[in-house]
């Protein structure tokens, strides 16, 4: 009786129902696939029958493990790409933290001019797809290795060396610039919330400016900085498009490009194993981060409100520095977009003669002598199918992930501290640490065949929606937890006392009050999936192509003009949408991340 009674009263509370449902679903969508992929690393796949002699497809084998870790070609297949990946991630972290942290300090702590403009320009590279800058780099600096030279050579006549145009150097620069806004948002948030009195107290005690930064500011910001390092590291590790664009011409391989090659080629077993390695690295990072965040609590500033911050006076450097910063930001945000526009109007790149300019790639019906007679993108029905797929996919993902995120937020905050809540909290954050492409590989392995009541999903649109929703749940659930947490429980309890139903409480009280945070929980998945490539690339089929995967294919074929036109298109859609939502609701992409 008592058990039944307890059971009944447990499920009478909506937060408990949500907890149990979401945990069950997420276990199925996140943890079960992990086992499936481990299993796949020990199986013989049909395309591998030629090499693994005397076996049938589905047999148990240790072939993949042996040849990846201790085979003749291990160095080329695995160790060199692993080393490249780690080295790229570390350097990217360094660049992102220095730039993002530096800018955050300038904007929050000094009297630099144009703060608002700097802030919104600086966020742009993060809102744009990461390969925007990679493409721009190619537009500028590509050399004869891939056909026509880039703008730089066209203007100056100077030949660009391979190391500068392709491989490690541009990859780290581009990824560093892409993730710098992330560091900017995280570190800037801490700097802004950090009690200015802590620095003033040191100032009064005759501490020099450098010593204040070294002994007070940095140690206090350090936990947030470490967190940023880990998140940037794992993001850089799972980047695919940038190394694919910039590394391929010189055969510079990283784990993700290797994963793509093997899974798309004849050695899926290798691919699954590489994905597993990436997941393990991701999990180690998650654990490290959790430990650091746990410690951070003791760092929480003790009491009281923060007073108005007195800003560092840059004196005579103020104007010069402001202008230099602004020019730099224009170089990495607006100028790339201009190059896309220019390239998309040129028949052959690098030539600026009038007859070389054409609207063919936008409006043309297609000329058989240029790029296989593909029509211009504004008349191309495949582009419209891709666009429709992208928008449809992003809307569905945003609705699913956003709603789930809000529910996660509600139930986790309501049951804060309980085992169930902690489980859901971690589970919903876990997809963040799964490298996108490895996650795609997991779903490929898991849903290629019928599983229980779920039919084989490979090639369907549903699998894209599913994977996108799970992958972006972390953004949405962070925003949801934030929204409910800030609200405090009294506001809802006041309605409970009046006997208002749960549904009404959510729709009439909680969501309207926290509209901005809630909306950013929907906005983030939308924008992320609009520009996503590596998550979908293993799972799309000709009928489910989205804009980004089309772009990748055009780029692979060397149809730069189409690629440039599409990227311009995507960037404009994403940036415009972000601006509109920001204007209308006050929600913005930086809100969800900068919690």
């Amino acid at each position, binding site marked *: 009786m008592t058990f039944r009674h307890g059971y009944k009263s447990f499920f009478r509370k909506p937060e408990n129902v949500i907890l149990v449902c979401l945990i069950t679903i997420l276990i199925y969508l996140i943890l079960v696939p992990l086992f499936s992929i481990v299993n796949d690393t020990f199986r013989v796949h049909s395309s591998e029958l030629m090499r693994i002699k005397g076996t049938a497809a589905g047999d148990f084998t240790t072939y993949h493990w042996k040849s990846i870790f201790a085979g003749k070609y291990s160095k080329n297949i695995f160790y060199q790409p692993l080393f490249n990946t780690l080295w790229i991630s570390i350097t990217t972290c360094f660049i992102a933290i220095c730039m993002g942290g530096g800018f955050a300090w300038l904007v929050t702590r000094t009297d630099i001019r144009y703060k608002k403009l700097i802030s919104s320009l600086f966020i742009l590279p993060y809102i744009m797809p990461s390969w925007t800058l990679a493409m721009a780099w190619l537009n500028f600096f590509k050399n004869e290795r891939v056909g026509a030279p880039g703008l730089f050579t066209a203007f100056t006549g100077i030949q660009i060396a391979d190391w500068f145009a392709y491989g490690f150097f541009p990859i780290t620069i581009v990824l560093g610039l892409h993730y710098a806004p992330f560091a900017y948002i995280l570190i800037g948030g801490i700097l802004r919330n950090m*009690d200015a*009195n*802590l620095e*003033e*107290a*040191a*100032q*009064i*005690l*005759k*501490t*020099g400016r450098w*010593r204040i930064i070294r*002994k*007070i500011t940095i*140690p*206090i910001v350090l936990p947030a900085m470490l967190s940023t390092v880990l998140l940037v590291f794992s993001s850089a590790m799972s980047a695919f498009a940038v190394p694919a664009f910039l590394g391929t011409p010189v055969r510079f391989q990283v784990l993700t490009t290797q994963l793509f090659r093997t899974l798309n080629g004849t050695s899926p077993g290798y691919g699954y194993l590489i994905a597993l390695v990436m997941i393990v690295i991701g999990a180690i990072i998650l654990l490290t981060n959790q430990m650091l965040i746990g410690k951070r609590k*003791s*760092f*929480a*500033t*003790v*009491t*009281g*409100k*923060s*007073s108005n911050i*007195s800003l560092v006076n840059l004196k005579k450097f103020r104007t010069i520095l402001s202008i230099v910063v602004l020019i730099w930001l224009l170089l990495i945000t607006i100028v790339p977009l201009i190059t896309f526009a220019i390239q998309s109007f040129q028949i052959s790149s690098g030539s600026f003669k009038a007859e070389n300019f054409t609207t063919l790639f936008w409006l043309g019906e297609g000329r058989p002598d240029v790029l296989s007679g593909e029509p211009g993108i504004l008349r191309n029905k495949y582009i419209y199918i891709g666009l429709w797929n992208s928008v449809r996919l992003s809307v569905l993902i945003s609705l699913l992930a956003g709603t789930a995120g809000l529910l996660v937020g509600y139930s986790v905050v309501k049951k804060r501290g309980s085992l169930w809540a902690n489980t859901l909290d971690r589970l919903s954050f876990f997809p963040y640490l799964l490298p996108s492409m490895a996650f795609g590989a997991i779903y490929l392995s898991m849903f290629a065949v019928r599983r229980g009541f779920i039919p084989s999903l490979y090639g369907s649109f549903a699998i894209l929606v599913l994977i996108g929703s799970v992958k972006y749940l972390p953004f949405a659930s962070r925003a949801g937890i934030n929204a409910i947490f800030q609200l405090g429980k009294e506001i809802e309890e006041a309605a409970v006392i009046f006997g208002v139903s749960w549904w009404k409480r959510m729709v009439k009280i909680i969501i309207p009050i926290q509209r901005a945070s809630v909306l950013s929980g929907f906005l983030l998945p939308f924008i992320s999936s609009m520009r996503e490539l590596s998550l979908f690339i293993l799972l799309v089929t000709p009928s489910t192509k989205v804009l980004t995967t089309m772009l990748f294919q055009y780029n692979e074929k060397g149809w730069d003009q189409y690629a440039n036109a599409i990227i311009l298109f995507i960037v404009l859609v994403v940036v415009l949408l972000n601006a509109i939502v920001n204007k209308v609701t006050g929600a913005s992409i930086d809100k969800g991340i900068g919690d």
Partner: protein
Amino acid sequence: MPEIKIKNVTKKFGKFVAVENLNITIADKWFVTLLGPSGCGKTTTLRMISGLESPTEGEIYIDDILVFSSEKGVDLPPAKRDVGFLFQNYALWPHMTVDQNISFGLENLKWSKSDITNRVHELTELLKIDEFLDRYPAELSGGQQQRVAIARTLAPRPKVFFMDEPLSNLDAKLRMEMRTELKRLHRETNSTFVYVTHDQLEAMTLSSRICLMKEGRVQQYAAPLEVYNVPSNKFSAEFVGNPTMNFVEVECQQAGSGNIQLAADDLLFTFTPVSHPPSLKTGQKLVLGLRPECIRLSEEGTVQGSIYSALPSGMETTVIVKIKTTLFTSVVFGGQDFPVDGEIGIQLDHDNYILFDKGSGENIAAGSLTVSIREAGT
């Protein structure tokens, strides 16, 4: 010896004037309290003297050294002003132990290791926190954090010691205790204290001078008891004292050289100034101020009323008496209770009732009072 002179200091934040034309002198070894409601400019004033904020106009001298002048373009950074500053939220560095927090300032001054250790021990013993040297701020209670912050501020022996609402985050009991110790500290350190608070009781009990501010302007700058007994205006009178002074709006009926007749809604007063008679016009709107302790309850009072409410605290009882439609607050010492709605009269036998001008709020005169019921039609 450090004397702080503030001359014609104005501070604007954009269009908002936080402090307007401030002129005060703080003598050596004084304990000056900047008192006022929130937003009155007291914290801004303190931050300007310490150098954390730059005034828009004016001059500031500490110890006869010009530390700020808008005209001469002088603006010494806080480090060069030889001051100590205790923040409202203590601003202890969360990543340093108590020991490191206190020694930090001394290391900046390049003190030797042994000197630092001695000074830290001296202070931690004085403030009774010597057992917490290796703890982090988050591991201390509010009161202990407060002491660490005081020790950190005092360590380099600043000439002047600024405090910004240091007790506002403590509970009532601890606040009482710290008040006692701050006063001892002032005596023992022999330095000048400038203290910001919105708590009139703290200002009254601690300071040698109160600087009462409102909307960026000084209302009164005087010793606490003077502020209490001779408030310069109605704001001063109302802000200082608990329970608050009673105010009765009256109209001057007859202004003579001797007694002045004042009429309230249903009460009549005769006011006899103790000093020179003020010049009043008949029909002038005035406010009469009566301190609660100057209203005596008695069975055979000149006017009779009923007890509206009684709040006994043990040591004293605050009694609110209703006479006709006017409420008077009175304080009776000793543990007495009064039945609500019981009959009681009041007697006004002091000579420090104060007459304010209603329009300007200025203190016009102090004097003695008699009260009677105003009959209908008079």
